[in-house]
């Protein structure tokens, strides 16, 4: 199986280049991460992130043939040859397939992804009904791999001002939490033409999310909540 992998070391290379690799035998169920680990044995200088290898940590997001995926959950059998592996688009490359995620995480921090509860602290924990808890399904499972945000054309056009689907999904997760009391402040944080309203419902985020989440729907819900609170 033929691969073409993005190589770039800003300290030594003037320009990025694509390096060819070949995999002699592909066993059943083999994932892209397994292939990358084999290539790492052939060429120790190849650099990429990986950790859990099971699609939980979100460390090994890469772009394969133009589509963002997690290397550890992408079967080689579904990939078209030659398999082009490049870093997640729109983020600065540190080296080879490793990108600088600071811009992504600063947007995540901007939505204050934690519970804000100003009401008096109860003697026991802040409780939710089963229905209130079920309302959070589909928003808390995000593993922050950045596959959605970096595949979004609106974010690529305005990476500094549009928060992107991952951060907005987290914004909705806390706006929709029955225990959170900072709804108005959170909505004010999202006000303006850029932070929330650059989403053009292209839905690339939905297509590439390795956890099958729906940030586009979350963005729509935030807009409806904003409309409701402004009427």
């Amino acid at each position: 199986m033929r691969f073409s992998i993005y190589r770039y070391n800003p300290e030594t290379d003037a320009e990025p280049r694509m390096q060819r690799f070949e995999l002699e035998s592909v066993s059943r169920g083999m994932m892209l991460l397994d292939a990358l680990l084999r290539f790492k044995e052939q060429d120790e200088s190849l650099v990429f992130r990986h950790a859990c290898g099971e699609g939980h940590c979100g460390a090994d997001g890469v772009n394969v043939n133009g589509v963002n995926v997690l290397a550890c959950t992408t079967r080689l059998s579904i990939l078209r040859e030659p398999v082009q592996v490049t870093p997640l688009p729109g983020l600065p490359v540190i080296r080879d397939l490793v990108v600088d995620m600071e811009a992504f995480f600063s947007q995540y921090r901007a939505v204050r992804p934690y519970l804000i509860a100003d009401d008096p602290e109860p003697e026991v924990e802040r409780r939710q009904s089963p229905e209130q808890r079920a309302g959070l399904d589909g928003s808390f499972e995000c593993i922050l791999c950045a596959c959605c945000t970096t595949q979004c054309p609106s974010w690529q056009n305005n990476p500094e001002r549009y928060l992107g689907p991952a951060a907005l999904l987290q914004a909705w997760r806390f706006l929709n939490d029955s225990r959170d009391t900072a709804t108005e402040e959170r909505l004010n944080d999202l006000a303006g033409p850029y932070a929330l309203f650059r989403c053009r419902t292209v839905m690339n985020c939905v297509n590439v999310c390795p956890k099958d989440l729906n940030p586009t729907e979350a963005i729509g819900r935030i807009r409806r909540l904003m409309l409701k609170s402004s009427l």
Partner: protein
Amino acid sequence: MMGSGITPWLLQRLSSVYLGLYGSCIAICWMGRPAPDHAAWTAWVGQPWVSLGMGLFVLALLLHLWVGLRSLLMDWVTRTAVRAALNGLLLIGLTGVGLWALRTLWRAGL
């Protein structure tokens, strides 16, 4: 919170609903009828409710266009001065089209 980005978004949605409804009404009105000549068309548009509806249709279309094109400029034109200039040209152009449409409807009997 109005004017915080939600106003253009709401305008775009409301205008699209009106465009769809009025467009459907026109299609239903003329379905199965022969293509009108200029005199018949002018007489039809000259009816107060039709011309009022048509005027609102043009207004909704221009608002819808403004939001869509403004979004394109926000996405693709990063220099503030260039974007402001293009937005100004866009507003002048759309206002011109609106006035021209108003003149046409006025002549038809609005």
